[in-house]
């Protein structure tokens, strides 16, 4: 990883109006909750000429570390890969390991996994909504989003004791069964939360200032999206159907009715609308899962030592809150994976940032960055 010095960036000569370009650091420390993402921005006055993301400030060698940990130990590291959406990454690793070893989790475990992953999607999108609105300048929705997220985290804490890094979804099932009061509390939360989505939409969605800042800004055309590896809600905002839950259903997503949220314009507003609609869809999915929950075992019978088969390799993907989260595991007959690789949505989405912001103003960088829902630990791992 080379550290780019500002002095190494070549600045082109004078533009047609005789103004000079200058290079500015949108430094690793940000006022918004994007984490330690560094952007080197070449500006001509107010207009952006080029955006160079410098990654690696949060690199923790998780993939390499996982080579020295057993498969169950790897789950604790997955929490830290995307700490805003930790359940999803837990699930990705658990599914990958199960597919590698030919295990199958029992039905109740799968329904529980679905409930928690969808609750996690709600929590992640609420935090995103707050951060996005805060980037645009509306400071209040952040607190509203966090207020609802706290209630979701209370549900998580009730189940596994943790509020951010759960380590709950294990290989072969889940860690522990839910308490009896979980189901009524979850239902109560969903009933309380669903009208709130309309409230937050009323505050932002058709606000003229918000529309001015996000409509037509950062348009990802379908071709640009596919060619640059954009995935998840960012690509669904351009009208491309790419939800892994629909294309390669895992757990019981094929038995649950939900819509894939698509918008056609591909601008920041469309991506915002996709995620707000996904909030509603997740609420509906959780309700259906709660209805279908049956008593039963929560973990399958596991061998005493989990060994990945020699020569076995698997790429297993799920739809996390940010897009396609894929885990590639290579087994070598030992309890530790030979190689693990995390394919994270935020990392793929970073590439398109430069093309989206060229020719736009500085304030639009924040709007586009917010709308792509980038979480830096996922980018750097």
């Amino acid at each position: 990883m080379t550290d780019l010095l500002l002095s190494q960036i070549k600045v082109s000569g004078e533009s047609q109006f005789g103004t000079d370009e200058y290079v500015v650091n949108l430094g690793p420390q940000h006022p918004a909750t994007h984490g330690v993402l560094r952007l080197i921005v070449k500006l001509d006055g107010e207009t952006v000429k080029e955006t160079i993301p410098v990654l690696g400030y949060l690199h923790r060698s998780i993939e390499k570390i996982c080579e020295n940990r057993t498969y169950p130990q790897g789950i604790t590291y997955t929490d830290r890969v995307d700490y805003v959406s930790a359940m999803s990454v837990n699930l990705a690793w658990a599914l990958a390991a199960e597919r590698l070893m030919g295990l199958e989790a029992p039905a109740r475990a799968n329904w529980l996994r679905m409930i928690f992953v969808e609750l996690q999607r709600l929590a992640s999108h609420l935090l995103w909504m707050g951060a996005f609105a805060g980037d645009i300048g509306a400071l209040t929705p952040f607190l509203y989003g966090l207020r609802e997220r706290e209630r979701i985290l209370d549900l998580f804490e009730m189940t596994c004791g943790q509020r951010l890094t759960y380590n709950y979804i294990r290989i072969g099932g889940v860690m522990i069964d839910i308490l009896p009061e979980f189901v009524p509390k979850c239902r109560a939360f969903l009933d309380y939360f669903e009208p709130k989505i309309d409230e937050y939409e009323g505050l932002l969605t058709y606000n003229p200032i918000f529309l001015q800042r996000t409509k037509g800004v950062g348009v990802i055309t379908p071709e640009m999206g596919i060619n640059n590896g954009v995935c998840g809600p960012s690509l669904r905002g351009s009208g491309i159907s790419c939800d892994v839950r629909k294309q390669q259903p895992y757990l019981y997503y094929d038995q649950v009715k939900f819509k894939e949220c698509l918008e056609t314009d591909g601008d920041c507003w469309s991506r915002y609308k996709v995620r707000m609609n996904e909030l509603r869809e997740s609420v509906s999915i959780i309700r259906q899962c709660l209805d279908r929950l049956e008593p039963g075992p929560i973990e399958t019978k596991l061998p005493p030592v989990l060994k990945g088969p020699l020569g076995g390799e698997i790429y297993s993907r799920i739809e996390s809150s940010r897009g396609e989260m894929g885990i590639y595991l290579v087994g070598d007959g030992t309890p530790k994976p030979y190689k693990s690789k995390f394919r994270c949505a935020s990392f793929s989405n970073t590439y398109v940032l430069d093309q989206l912001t060229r020719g736009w103003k500085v304030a639009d960088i924040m709007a586009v960055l917010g709308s792509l829902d980038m979480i830096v630990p996922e980018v750097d791992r």
Partner: protein
Amino acid sequence: MFTGENIVQTVVGLLHSLYGMVGLSSFQGILDPIVAAVVMFHFIAVFVMFLVWMERKVSAHMQSRIGPNRVGVFGLLQTLADAIKLTIKEDVKPVKRDKIPYYIAPIIAFVATFMGMVVIPFDKGMVVQDLNIGLLYIIAITSFTVIAILTAGWSSNNKFALLGGFRSAAQIVSYEVPLVLSLVPIIMITGKLSLGAIVAYQQQQGYWFVIPQAIAFLIFITSATAEANRAPFDIPEAESELIGGFHTEYSGVKFAMFFLGEYIAVVVSSAVASTVFLGGWLPFPFMGFLHLPGFVWFMAKLLLVIYLIMAFRWTFPRLRVDQLMDFGWKVLIPISIINILVTGFWILLVAKGA
């Protein structure tokens, strides 16, 4: 009856007898306005401290929080604590700054906005000086902030502060035009610039100017928020993500002066809005039977308008700089000019050249 007029007469009477005791009766003409100005200064200084607390509480309750509640009852002494903190802060100054402008800029920002409060009538006769060019004086005074901002940006020896200062000055200058144009219909209707006379006109006609001139009121409030660099027009300030505003290189008391200057600008604009559009010290409709002194009604209206301006900040996203300028020049100015035209026609045709 307990009215503002009675209070003013009593106090002035006491003051004159005080002059007599000390032997300064002949200097009455000079001392009276000075004493009034000093009283006004102290009142506004305390009021601004209250406003800072109010902003924090209002924003907190809008955001499902509580706000300051530790320092003093309901956190009322929080601003005092912040002021003490700012005064004992180290005064960090850039080495290559332009010394005299750097020192003067916050003073201009603070003093100029205070000067606007001189003509605001809190009650009938409760005004430091009811200049007969009152509105013109206020409009002229609010332009001083541009000088302060440009001076601050230039003298900081920081190209980003300079750019922030330019941007802020451009915003203030462009929003002064709709600010003034929204007041012109009122001047046309009443034929007077004195704020006391405008309130008297509203009393005589029986209804406040916000009813016929609602559009002008909205334009005035919008322009006033832009004048004070407040959200949703606070790109020069919130640009601290990339470029610091004009007050980047200021710390401690100097920064406090800019900060308080912004609040006083809000107070002055709200006071003008309450006086010109909302009837100043006149009682609320259907509440005149309460017989409260006029300044109670005035303070209520003032706080209402200030609350509105504060609510803007925590509700709306920020406008981008070019969208901000577009809005000022391409939307507000044409609407205010059309408003003037319509008012002119109304005066000519309906009110028969009143």
